[in-house]
Structures are given as C-alpha cells and as structure tokens.
C-alpha cells in the first residue's frame, strides 16, 4: 500500500433532487483505494454508497449532481473529465460490476457480443483476435465451456455464470480499478462464495484496486483490506478491516456489527415434550406446464417433505432459491393446494379440505411475508387491516379494535398508527403491523416467510427480537423460512435444510451447525461469508 492510490475520493459531496428527504446524498466523503487493495464501502440502504460508486464511473442518474470535492483516478479528476474522456477511461482504466447480473446484461444480445463490444470500443483488434481474447477472458473467469457461452443469451445461463460474464466484461481490458456494487447480493450463498473467491483471485492476479460496495459484514470480513462505514451520506468510520470489525469506534458501527447474527447458535431450551401443532407427511407440490403441441413438463417444487413443529418452538427451513422452502410454507397455510401428502393441523388432515371446510383452520395458521411494502393493502388503513380477520370470525368491531390496539402496543407501535395508511410507515414498521395482523387471529402457528430479508441489518435485528419475544410470550409454534444461515442460527430451535424441493437434513440447530451430516449442508455452512468472525457473540451474551 506504499504506492500512490489508484482511486482517491476527496471531500466528495453529491446533491439530491430538491424534493428529497435530505439535501446531500454524499457529504464530505474521503476514501482511497490503493493498488492491489480491496476497500469495502459498507452501509445500510440510503447511506450513499452506491451513489459514490456511480459518481466514480460518471454514471450518476439525472437529478444527482456532484457539488464539491474530487474523484481522482490515478491522479485524474473524473468529475472534471469530458464525456469523451470518461468513455475512454471506462473499461480501460476503471470498470464496474453490478448487483443484478440478470438485468445488467442485455437480454437480446449474446454474451459473446456483449464482451466483444468492450474490445471493439476500445481496441483496434480484428474479429479473430477479439474472439480469441473473449475466449481467453471467459476462461479466466472460470467459465467451463466458453465456446458455448459465447453464443448463449443471458437467460440461458445461471445467475453465477451471468455474474462471471459481467466480471469478464469488466476485466477484459485489465483496468487498474474495479468498482463492484453489491455484486453477490442477488446470488445464492454457494454461488456468492464462488464469485467472492473469483474476485479475490482475479484482483490478486491482475493487481487491481477494488472498491467493493456491500451491506453485508460477512462479505466485508471475507474480502476487504480496509473498510469505510457510511451512514446518511457521511463517513462514520474508516480503517483496516481487523481494526474496524474487532474494535469499532463509532457507536453506529458497533450497533451494525452487533446486529449481525453469529454463526454459532445460542443454547436453547428443549421443546421435544411439547404437543405438535402442525406436521406434514410426504408433502409434495408439483406444477405441470406446457400442454398443447408442447412437451408437458412436471416440476416438483416440493417433494416428499416430512416435518413437524411443536408448540413454543421455532422450526427453520433453510435453503437456496428454488429449494422449495416457500412452497412448503404456502402448502401448510393452504395458500396453494398440495399435490399429495398430508398436512395435519389440530388432529385433522387439511391438505385436501375444501375452501369452505378450511375456514375454521385458517385462523390457526397465519403468515408474515417477505416484502413489507406489498403485504399491506395500500388503500386500507392499519385499523381496517387489523380488524379484518377477527371480524371475519365474528368478533364484534369494538372488541376487534380493542385487540388491535393491544397488539399495536405489543409490536411496539403507537396507537396513532391505526388511522394511517401503509405508505406512511417504514419497512420495519410495516413488518410490525403485519405481525400484529397475524397475531390478531390468535394463531397456533406463525409462518414467517423470509420476514427480514428486505430489511436493513439494524431493523432486521429488531424484527427478529420481536418474533422471538412474541413466540415466548404467546407460546406460539413458528415456522421460519430463510435463506440466511445467520438468521436461522439466531432464532431457530430446529432447522430443516432443503435443496431442489427435497429435505436434505434436519435436526436441532446447534447440532446441525456444529456437525452437519450431509455434504450439501457442509457446503452451505462453508459458503457463509465471514463465518470465522464471531459476529453477534456480544449480542447473545
């Protein structure tokens, strides 16, 4: 790090549009990226980290304007560069890797064409030379069959392969600086691990400086040499990774790090003697598609799933996308009809009950969904949402209202919330309202389907605490769906690991995390970024 930095951001200020909540997206920011160095820019949503990245590339959206400072790329201020100069710099000296590889690639052009474009724009190579170069770079990003991938369209590749294509484009001309904006957030955990390794390896091989934007302290621990923590556009803390993670100085950093759940499950009480609330046997959900002049395909979203949840216990279902976690949950809640197998609730198999006969059972199972912005009807007040369920079951309006008020207090919201509309609340607050709406039914089983995935880590911790608290207080059975092993470790008594619709392994959380029996579980645990860091230990004590 003795060399001059490749990127130096000095006193950067970026203004927001006039009608925004605050005046500046980024304020007096000072960050530098040295040669062969990975600097992580961490923060929650709205911290200004992505805006900083886009400013460095000269890609700020309309309405955002740099108002002060400079961004020096090898000493040259890109904020003052002409559009022509910026175009020359892009990909040759600085490149960007984006968050969502599906949307970052043009769906109607082949991957080969899209990489080739970089070479055509910046080099004098002829077609054959360019093709050779594209093949070479594809091999460097560890694409197994580059000949095929060159002619493939993005939708024909997996998420991980797509992100490799984006990386290939970024590194094709060996720039001195790569800016990676949450490059693994949209990926499954095992793919994330591979991509992180790839970025680290390539960074070392090419000697690139990397500015890595993330919200995930696990990723920070995994990859960063230095960390810059941002909040509301301002730099909160800046230093070597070891220093910041182990001895954070700013209160905000301390809070953030404390909010990250640890990978070691805390000790929990034994629930095996409690009555079973819900159980499934051989639960299967198959979808068939196609038909008429088209091959019919049957896809099993869930196959032969057997599990049970006891009163007072949290059962986690973990797995990557497409594992069938949500399908199982939705079958149990009878939001979809299972194809076969049984769901036993209150001593009766409800898997095939008609919608009319299902009515008395509906009350017992309530669901909290992932996206708090879509789980409340935007045109109904909180009051209307909270009394709807109980009144469906014949509770008089004033009693339902009294219950709603009590529950609002329980989930930590003011009674004044009753007459407001969902858009007036933050994501965390909305999730509290959803919890209150579910509890108003006095359910026996609470299904939480990725309830904190859309929330920032600090809010995430609060909502997890609330669910834990509610479970204890009301002696509920909780079925907790998550892709995040840290979250599972924190709240689940037992865990079911799923993959491609099937149960891989299940057992008490502590045991499963300590000594996984199946290869896939081991892979999953090994892939969790920053697992050797003991996050959350302080929180648990």
């Amino acid at each position: 790090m003795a060399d001059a930095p490749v990127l130096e951001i000095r006193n950067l200020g970026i203004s927001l549009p006039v009608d925004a909540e605050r005046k500046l997206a980024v304020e007096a920011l000072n960050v530098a990226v040295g040669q062969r160095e990975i600097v992580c820019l961490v923060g929650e949503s709205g911290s200004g980290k992505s805006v900083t990245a886009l400013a460095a590339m000269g890609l700020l959206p309309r309405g955002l304007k740099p108002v002060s400072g400079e961004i020096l790329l090898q000493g040259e201020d890109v904020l003052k560069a002409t559009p022509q100069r910026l175009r020359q710099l892009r990909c040759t000296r600085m490149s960007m890797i984006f968050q969502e590889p599906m949307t970052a690639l043009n769906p109607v052009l082949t991957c080969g064409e899209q990489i080739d474009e970089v070479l055509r724009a910046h080099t004098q190579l002829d077609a054959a030379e360019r093709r050779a170069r594209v093949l070479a770079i594809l091999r460097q990003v560890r694409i197994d069959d580059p000949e095929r991938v060159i002619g493939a369209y993005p939708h024909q590749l997996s998420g991980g392969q797509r992100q490799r294509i984006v990386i290939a484009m970024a590194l094709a001309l060996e720039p001195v600086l790569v800016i990676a904006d949450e490059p693994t957030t949209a990926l499954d955990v095992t793919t994330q691990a591979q991509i992180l390794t790839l970025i680290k390896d390539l960074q070392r091989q090419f000697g690139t400086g990397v500015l890595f934007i993330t919200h995930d302290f696990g990723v920070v621990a995994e990859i960063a040499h230095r960390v810059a923590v941002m909040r509301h556009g301002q730099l909160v803390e800046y230093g070597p990774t070891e220093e910041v993670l182990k001895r954070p100085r700013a209160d905000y950093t301390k809070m953030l790090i404390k909010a990250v759940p640890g990978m070691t499950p805390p000790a929990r009480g034994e629930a095996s003697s409690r009555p079973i609330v819900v159980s499934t046997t051989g639960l299967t959900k198959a979808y068939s598609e196609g038909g008429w002049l088209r091959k019919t395909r049957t896809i099993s979203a869930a196959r032969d799933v057997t599990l049970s949840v006891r009163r007072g216990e949290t059962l986690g279902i973990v797995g990557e996308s497409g594992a069938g976690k949500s399908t199982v949950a939705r079958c149990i809640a009878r939001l979809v009809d299972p194809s076969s197998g049984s769901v036993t609730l209150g001593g009766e198999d409800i898997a095939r009950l008609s919608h009319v006969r299902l009515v008395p059972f509906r009350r017992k199972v309530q669901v909290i969904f992932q996206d708090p912005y879509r789980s409340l009807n935007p045109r109904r007040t909180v009051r209307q949402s909270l009394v709807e369920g109980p009144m469906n079951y014949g509770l008089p309006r004033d009693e339902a209202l009294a219950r709603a008020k009590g529950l609002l207090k329980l989930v930590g919201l003011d009674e004044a919330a009753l007459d407001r509309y969902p858009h007036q609340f933050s994501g965390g607050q909305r999730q509290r309202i959803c919890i209150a709406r579910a509890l108003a039914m006095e359910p026996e089983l609470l299904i939480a389907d990725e309830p904190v995935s859309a929330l920032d880590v600090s809010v995430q911790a609060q909502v997890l605490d609330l669910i834990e608290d509610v479970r204890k207080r009301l002696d509920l059975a909780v079925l907790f769906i998550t892709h995040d092993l840290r979250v599972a470790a924190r709240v689940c008594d037992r865990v079911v690991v799923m993959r491609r619709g099937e149960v891989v392994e299940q057992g008490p959380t502590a045991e499963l995390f300590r000594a996984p029996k199946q290869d896939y579980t081991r892979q999953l645990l090994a892939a969790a970024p920053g697992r050797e860091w003991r996050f959350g230990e302080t929180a648990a004590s």
Partner: protein
Amino acid sequence: MSALGETLPVAGAARRPAGTFARMAKSPGVMFGGAVLALMLLIALLAPVLGTIAPSAINPAARNKTPGAEITMRASDGTQTARSAWMGTDSLGRDVYSRVIYGARVSLIVGVAAAAVSVAIGLFFGLVAGYVRWLDGAVMRVMDGVMAIPGILLAIALVSLWGAGLATVIVAVAVPEIPRVVRLVRSLVLSIREEPYVEAAVALGTPVPLILLRHVMPNTVAPLIVQATFICANSILVEAILSFLGIGIPPDIPTWGNIMAEGRALFRLFPHIIFFPGVFLSLTVLAINIVGDGLRDTLDPRMVKRI
C-alpha cells in the same frame, strides 16, 4: 406491555395519499385540457341560453350563408327578427352556431355514456375472468373474437343492423371497447391476486367476494379511470365518424359529426360548415386526451399502454 419496552414513533400525520388533483393541476397542459373540458360542459348545459335558436329550424330564405351573414328569422306568429349567423348556415338554412352549441350535448353524452357502459361491462367480465379461473378461457376467447374485428368497422356493422339512434350509437361505440377493458381488468386482477396482501386476506379467512370488493377492486380504480377517459375521447370520435359517414345519429338531432356530414357536398364553396364543428370536436377530444394523460401520469406512472 410493549415488547421492546419502548414505543416507536410513527412518522407523518394521518392523511390519504397525496391529493391526485393537486399534483395533476401542476401541469400547464392539464390545466388547459381541464379548462377546455369545463367550457364544453358549460356550453352543453347552457345551450338554450347562449343566443341559440332551434337547431333544427329550417329557413329556406337563409340557405348556405357564409359566416357573419345577416339573416331574418320568421317566428310562428309572423314577427320577423334579424340576427347575425356568425358561423353561417347550412344548405337547409339551419343556423350552424346553434347546431354546434347543441351538438356539444350529444357528443359529450355519447362519450360519457359509452365509457360508462364499456367500463361497467368490462369490469364485470374482467373480474370474472381474473378471479374465476375456469371461466377465464371462455371469456377471453370471446373477447379475442371481438378484438379481432377492427373497432370502427364493428360499430358500423352494429349500427347498420340496429338502426341509427342515440342509444344504438352509444352501445355500438361501446361494444368494441369492452374487450380492452376486460383485458386491462383481468391483467390487473391477475397481478393483484398474487400480492401478499391478498394472500394475507385469504389467510385471515376473508371470503372471495369480499376479497374482490375490498382488496382487488379498489386497486383497479385508478387505471380504469384513465382507461375510461380515453374511451370517452375515442367514443366521441367514433360517433362523429359514424354521423359523418351518414350512418350515425340522424340529422334532426344535431351532432358535430352530422353537421359536418351536411357540409360535405358543398365543401369547396362553404368550408365553414365543416370547419366550425371540426374545431369544437377536435378541441374537446384533445382536452379529454390531455386530461387522461395527466391522470395516467399521476395515478399510475408505469402504465404506458394506450392502444
């Protein structure tokens, strides 16, 4: 008994989502459209007191007068009055100004009624197709069939069968619009029913009719209002076309379309008979379209379809 020992403050005062009309009125285009539309409504309402005479009164002595000509009117009691026909007269000596003013009534009635008819029918079938899955196929195939017949042609065929009159023209103009409304409502229902808040309502044990009424329908209102505006504008145009072709509302009820139809034969000599109603018609439709665009931009910025 707060779970976390503290109660979180809730931001913002209690209020409905920010005023749609306040936001809309910011655009000068929408202001213009709204003003023109209000003016046309006033004209239609106040037609008898705007210095008009009976719009169908034939005056053989004052045929084909150019705008501004002085004409004498003979009332039934024999008294004569002089007036200036500032828009001229047609080949039967009828006062074009009076006909244009009264024509505003018919055009606006046709537009609003056709929009109401097609939205009401389309909403019903759209909800059915979107929520009752086994009826979806049948309803949509019928709608595809109607859509396959170009709209104006369908209206022409229907009017030719039912005979020309205000009611038949309204229905004939509304029918081709129904499938578009059905498609819109169906696609909205299909996306809304996947929303977690609808699934939550299912889990809360809310019966299907109430789910439709409480959770689905209110969220179709905004796009439907926008669609209704465009149907209204288009219906006024189609009515004018039918009347202009001589197959719409008969000339004893003046509409902008049939006034212009009167003017076709002598267009080279007396273009004013087509010019004046043409300006009124174009301005009105323009105003409705602008207001519709404004509504769409404020109510639903993502909705760009307009076919």
